[in-house]
């Protein structure tokens, strides 16, 4: 029988190794968020890997033309979602969407308060988020939204504030509806999970947390989340998991696509996600001249009130009506999962399931 070297070590040596291992911090280099580049670079990276990875990476550029690296410092999943969210809003092309998002997120402070977070502590992080929404909206009209975004995410402390905001939002969302997430946690309460695996700066995103982040941050913005798994599983392509429900209210702003390699997230793009220089310039001009003279004008949109907690057309007695209830009587177009309770149940309870493909 082969003996493992650990078995020959004394307790002192073992504890010394344990200490070294606990203190080990991998050296991470590169920008926090890199430039978008052709995904053929991934093929080159895996050219000498084993056949499963070779096959999967060779098939990748046919569907996903570009990718963007995110620094693997333990926060890459959170950062990739945050960056992808802004890019989806930019790509959507309507600067007033940024103000709608700010309004929506400001109303979320009710959830943060309900979950017991102190406003005077989280407001700094929330402000970093709102400032960036405004900066990108105005940069969009000047035609350099992407540069502004990239610069903001490569500012260490600024992006850390935004990630802290997203973690706080995710934890608050989970804590205020523990019944939705508790079934997926093993021997942990939602509270314990949030304290150990969502809130700490060092906590990388996990599947349950990612699902909650999607539910509270991406879906209400009309943004779909897809995760493409590049691992050693069977198949000749990366496995795609589209988190469901696809979006809320039937409107579609865009998609955040994450490339997952065990322990690390990067961003992936299809051709349709890329800005087309000529088309986008005319769109910006059009929008700038029509709808964005004064940001405050956009407040006049008819469904503005529904952005606030407790101000939807239904459930006035409930402090924070769930999205489903808002949808049921709200101004949004009904979606498939309203009509089919089974779909809702299946999707709401199975963040770990990977069978919900739609090709």
């Amino acid at each position, binding site marked *: 029988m082969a003996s493992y070297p650990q078995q020959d070590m004394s307790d002192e040596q073992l504890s010394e190794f344990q200490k070294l291992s606990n203190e080990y911090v991998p050296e991470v280099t590169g920008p926090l968020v890199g430039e978008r580049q052709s995904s053929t670079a991934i093929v080159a990276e895996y050219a000498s890997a084993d056949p499963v990875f070779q096959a999967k990476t060779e098939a990748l550029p046919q569907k996903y033309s570009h990718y963007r690296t995110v620094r693997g410092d333990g926060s890459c999943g959170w950062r990739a979602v945050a960056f992808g969210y802004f890019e989806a809003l930019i790509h959507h092309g309507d600067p007033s969407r940024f103000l709608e998002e700010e309004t929506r997120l400001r109303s979320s402070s009710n959830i943060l308060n309900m979950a017991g*977070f*102190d406003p*005077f*502590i*989280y407001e*700094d*992080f929330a402000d970093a988020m709102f400032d960036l929404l405004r900066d990108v909206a105005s940069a969009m009209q000047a035609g350099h939204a992407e540069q502004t975004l990239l610069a903001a995410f490569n500012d260490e*402390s600024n992006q*850390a*504030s935004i990630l*802290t905001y997203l*973690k*706080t939002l995710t934890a608050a969302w989970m804590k205020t509806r523990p019944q939705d997430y508790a079934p997926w946690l093993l021997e942990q309460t939602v509270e314990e999970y949030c*304290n*150990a695996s969502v*809130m*700490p*700066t*060092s*906590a990388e995103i996990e599947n349950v947390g990612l699902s909650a982040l999607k539910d509270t941050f991406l879906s209400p913005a009309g943004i779909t989340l897809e995760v493409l798994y590049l691992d050693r599983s069977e198949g000749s392509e990366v496995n795609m998991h589209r988190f469901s429900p696809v979006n809320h209210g039937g409107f579609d702003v865009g998609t955040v696509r994450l490339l997952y390699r065990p322990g690390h997230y990067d961003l992936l793009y299809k051709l349709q996600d890329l800005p087309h220089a000529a088309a986008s310039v005319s769109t910006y001009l059009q929008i700038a001249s029509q709808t964005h003279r004064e940001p405050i004008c956009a407040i006049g949109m008819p469904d503005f009130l529904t952005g606030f907690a407790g101000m939807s057309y239904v459930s006035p007695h409930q402090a924070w009506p769930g999205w489903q209830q808002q949808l049921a009587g709200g101004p949004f177009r009904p979606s498939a999962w309203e009509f089919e309770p089974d779909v809702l149940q299946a999707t709401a309870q199975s963040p770990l399931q990977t069978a919900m493909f739609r090709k």
Partner: protein
Amino acid sequence: MAAKRLIKELDAYHSDPSPAVAILQPADDGDLLHLTAVLLGPQETAYEGGTFTLTLAVPPNYPAAPPDIRFRTPCCHPNVNFKTGEICLDLLKGSWTPAYGLISTLEAVQQLLSAGGNPDSPYNLDVARLMREGDLVGAEALVRFYTRLYAWGR
């Protein structure tokens, strides 16, 4: 960043004091980054009646990094170094989040006292051994003795 946030935290503490923290103030007027706190021993535990002085050293990049918190009043607890006052609490190390403040961190330290701590990663071998061997009466008596010796009436 750190100073702005600390001023907000101190203001919030003055308008809404914490039942766990009797005092939280800068150690001297010119320096916000070094603070003194007095933590009350949790009720219905062997620490009851004790008032523990702690020092908080706040790093310039706070709240991105956690404060360094140490007991100045000797505290007998398996996860507190009796001599240096160092505290073994995951919140003060890997589990830190900028969404915690000084008060919520001090409350977590009080929580650590009332929870009895984890004898498997001990800073205080004597009390940890008693707890591991199941001598909870002995452990409690030791805690009560040191609390009375050092933390009463100060």
